[in-house]
């Protein structure tokens, strides 16, 4: 596999703040002078895919993401949601359901990306979401970066689905928590696939926790099934980069980003000797 033929893709799967581990991978690739040919992101991975593709350094990516994805983005509740659950016939229940008002999230995204478009990215960028109406994977490659991220991040039950170009989008993890298939379709030879299993709930003491547990079971099985299929059908190499975390990491634990980045670096270092041999074609 010679350098001229090789196109390296970085795929960052869903995993909320754990996706910051991609910054560790980015650091290792930069240090080694390994060029990334495309970046693919789903859900939380989209945030980091966008930062890397738009040209943020690892330090900038860590700092910006710590401001982007804070617990504050869920601080403003959607007061109508509870009434929609309790009295759907009175308050109306439809596809726009979500327990959190997305005003703060949109403000944070606009503060970082403003009017940037996906096609402005320095590295080709592919963000995935899911069409709420038919369940199809939607790969966003042009248009408003903020809208694409908002669609890719539309966690069911939490955020409302987001309409982009006439399609109602929900979180990309619902179709593929680690969208390696996008990189295969775009002809990447070497795919660095960073993925995360969804955590299981320690205690089930509320409806939302029960719902998250079901969601984790389904998404983890979807992750494995899709990875198996893609690893077996790809003509080149899919290198799984699987950071290991000794501590439990909550969805908004941005204070743990330095620790998460280190875990990403360690996982990348493990694959590095083979990656270098592969790219050298030895």
């Amino acid at each position, binding site marked *: *596999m010679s350098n001229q033929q090789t196109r390296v893709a970085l795929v960052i799967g869903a995993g909320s703040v754990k996706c910051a581990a991609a910054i560790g991978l980015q650091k290792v690739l930069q240090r080694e002078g390994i060029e990334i040919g495309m970046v693919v992101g789903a859900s939380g991975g989209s945030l980091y895919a966008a930062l890397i593709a738009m040209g943020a350094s690892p330090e900038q990516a860590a700092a910006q993401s710590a401001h982007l994805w804070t617990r504050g983005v869920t601080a403003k509740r959607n007061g109508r949601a509870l009434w929609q659950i309790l009295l759907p016939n009175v308050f109306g229940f439809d596809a726009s359901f979500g327990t959190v008002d997305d005003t703060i999230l949109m403000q944070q995204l606009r503060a970082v990306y403003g009017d940037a478009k996906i096609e402005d990215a320095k590295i080709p960028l592919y963000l995935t979401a899911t069409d709420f109406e038919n369940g199809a994977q939607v790969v966003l490659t042009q248009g408003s970066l903020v809208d694409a991220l908002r669609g890719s991040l539309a966690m069911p039950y939490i955020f409302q689905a987001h309409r982009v170009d006439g399609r109602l989008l929900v979180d990309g993890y619902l179709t593929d928590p680690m969208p390696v298939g996008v990189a295969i379709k775009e002809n990447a030879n070497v795919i660095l696939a960073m*993925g995360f299993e969804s955590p299981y709930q320690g205690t089930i003491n509320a409806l939302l926790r029960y719902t998250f547990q079901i969601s984790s079971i389904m998404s983890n099985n979807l*992750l*494995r*099934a899709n*990875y*198996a299929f893609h*690893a*077996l059908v*790809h003509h*080149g*190499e*899919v*290198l*799984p980069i*699987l950071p290991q975390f000794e501590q439990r990491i909550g969805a908004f634990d941005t204070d743990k980003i330095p620790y998460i980045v280190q875990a990403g670096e360690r996982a990348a270092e*493990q694959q590095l000797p*083979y990656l270098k*041999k*592969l790219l050298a074609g*030895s």
Partner: protein
Amino acid sequence: MELKTETRGNTLVLTISGSLDALTAPELSDALSTQLRDGNTNLVADLSQLEYTSSAGLRVMLNGVKEARQKGGDLRLAAIQPNVKKVLDLSGFMSIMKAFPDVDGAVASFA
């Protein structure tokens, strides 16, 4: 990657060491094809010294197990190390292949 073979009763044990990846997988593929062609269809892959497998390695293992089963035998795994187990778990291989803690157990399973 280093590959050693040993016949134990009606079973052939392949000890695979090092890294099973795009650069080394063809060697295992050739070895499996030769053994299966020669009628050795009860195969145990001793993975106690396998440190790494990539998607190319998975593809060779899948072809091996499919061909062995088509010929009435099987390819079974033994002594999988944690790094390799992670990849086998993620890729669903543990749901389709029989795995044993050690080679003796894997060989005995063919008795």
